[in-house]
């Protein structure tokens, strides 16, 4: 894997490593869910704010740290050191206690104020449109079979991992893997994701935004977004465009599989459509959002209206937008 000068040929080397990763995954050498289990185990040992977990847990930690202990340890490796430290501690303890009480009181007050602020923000969040509605609607799994061939063709030269979010039962993940791509999926509906994993696909039960938030810049070869992108509120769509754009490497792609907004109301489950916090965007709008984040337009394909299957969110009046990060 060296060039004529004996120097490592980086391009070929990385392609070989990626090929080896695909083979290892396909062979089942790494059990399904092994890497997720590694992440889960470490998350269990990590403090809340190191893993991006709950604000409430961070407040609890802040409260714990708000107590200032004026009793400094007196252990020492030097002979007589302990006694000397103990004597100094006794001498200054009254002063330190007086200071520590004030600092602890200040810290505690700040934590209490933060807790109250947190509660107020939670109430505000519940009132704004960006927050999911109180009514829980189970969305139908996206039917992206009509795009599988196109997506597989667009991504056939992709280097690195391909993420399909939300991937539902993993149909597209399976199609991409069959095409030799190192594809995996995430879907928040645990039953769907686990069923796909049981079928031998690398599909993880996770919220898409949470998952993308953990991925470093340029770590993925491609991101395919479908299903939920139609129904989430606009602020989430913009944040999603940002995360997806950052996640792909140079030459990597972001694909949006979406419903044309003009057919949105006429299709799918009425309950789902009526209660969705957002509406689908036109391809031009996704293109604009992604261009703003440094991606360039590659292609857009439209499927003209066809009879909608009952409960389907895709299948009629849909489009596939392909954007890429310039090298």
């Amino acid at each position, binding site marked *: 894997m060296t060039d004529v000068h004996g*120097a490592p040929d980086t391009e070929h080397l*990385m392609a070989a*490593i990626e090929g080896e990763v695909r083979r290892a995954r396909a062979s089942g050498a790494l059990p399904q869910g092994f*890497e997720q289990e*590694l992440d889960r185990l470490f998350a269990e040992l990590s403090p809340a704010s190191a893993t991006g977990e709950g604000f409430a847990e961070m407040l609890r930690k802040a409260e714990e740290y708000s107590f200032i202990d004026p009793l400094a340890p007196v252990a020492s490796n030097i002979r007589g050191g302990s006694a000397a430290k103990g004597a100094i501690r006794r001498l200054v303890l009254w002063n330190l206690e007086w200071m520590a009480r004030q600092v602890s009181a200040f810290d505690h007050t700040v934590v209490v104020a933060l807790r109250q602020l947190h509660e107020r923000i939670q109430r505000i969040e519940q009132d704004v449109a960006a927050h999911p509605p109180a009514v829980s609607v189970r969305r139908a799994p996206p039917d992206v079979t009509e795009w599988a061939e196109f997506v597989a063709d667009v991504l056939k030269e992709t280097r690195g991992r391909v993420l399909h979010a939300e991937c539902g039962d993993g149909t597209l993940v399976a199609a991409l893997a069959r095409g030799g791509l190192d594809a995996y999926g995430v879907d928040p509906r645990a039953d769907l994701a686990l069923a796909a994993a049981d079928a031998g696909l690398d599909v993880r039960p996770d919220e898409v935004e949470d998952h993308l938030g953990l991925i470093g810049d340029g770590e993925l070869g491609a991101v395919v977004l479908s299903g939920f992108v139609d129904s989430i509120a606009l602020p989430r769509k913009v944040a999603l465009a940002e995360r997806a754009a950052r996640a792909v490497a140079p030459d990597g792609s972001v694909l949006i599989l979406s419903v044309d907004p003009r057919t949105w109301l006429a299709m799918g489950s009425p309950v789902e459509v009526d209660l969705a916090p957002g509406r689908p965007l036109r391809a031009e709008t996704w293109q604009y959002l992604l261009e703003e984040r440094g991606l360039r337009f590659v292609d857009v394909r439209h499927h003209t209206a066809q009879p909608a299957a009952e409960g389907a969110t895709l299948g009629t009046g849909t489009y596939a937008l392909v954007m890429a990060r310039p090298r």
Partner: protein
Amino acid sequence: MKALHQFLPSYAVHDAVGGHARQIRRLAREMGLRSDIYAGNARRSGDALPLADFERMPVSRDAVLLYHLSTGSALVELLLHRPEPKVVNYHNVTPAQFFDGWDPPMAAELSVGRHQLEAIAAAADLGIAVSAFNERELRTAGFRETAVAPVLVDLEAFDRAVDHQALARLTKAKAKAGGGADLLFVGRLAPNKAQHDLLKALAAYRRVYDPKARLHLVGTSSSESYRTALVAYADRLGLAEAIEFTGSVSDGVLAAHYRAADVFVCVSEHEGFCVPLLEAMHHRVPIVAYAAAAVPETLAGAGVLLPTKDPLTVAAAVNRVLADETLAAALRERGCVRLGDFSLERSRRRFTEVLEAYLSGG
């Protein structure tokens, strides 16, 4: 200009910044300048002088104060109140969020360091960065004049006498396990250095390629809670026997680890330069590294640079290096060439150019 004095929050003889400061002192004295190192933790009998000695010195417009910034320190306030011209040598401050959950006091100190970088930017005539990555941060912080000059490292000092007892122990452990690769990383146990991701990579590597492989983590700890979590993690993964946490080691033991290593693996998320990469090149240990912060710049092709640290990708890269002797040899050769860019002679020349340009007002 008649004097160049340096300031460090704390000085340690074996620390990369400490060695760098000594080299600058030598260089300044060779240029005919008076030059001393002052540090917050220094004693009068040591290599560096206590700050009190400096505070007693009369103000001199003929002296330049060079501050080595790598964390938050009360020293900045002291320097900001002095009228002498100031230069900052920036070694990078780890972003505080890496320590937020693990070690809040450390996070607070680092956060102060970042604020101080901005505070001192307005007062400093020049910011010298040890890498182009660091220079970009200096610019962002508001430094008007910046330059890049690498860390002054005496590469010959890497030729420490190997501790043969330690080497024998490592060789014996390998024989006892019936072989298996020895993966090495050198650096403080710290969340930004992401040793937990090395544990994940080892778990994947053992599962797919080499069930006897071991990982050696050489270095002291920056965060006790992170170290505790790493040890517990190794235990939970059933890797307690396969991972060595050496803590702080002598030069000889460090050399023994480089001698015994098959591959140096770095998945750090934040490095301002990463001197251990140079050490690995010097010891001709092939390198696999995650492309983050200044690592790609320091490595410059002298290692396998990964765009992701997905455990299986790191494992596959390690396997590729160990299975392909031609590749490993090519990486070693590239390491030797790259190391030449950091030879003490070359780095001293660069630092002298930067200093002379500054002193001449250019």
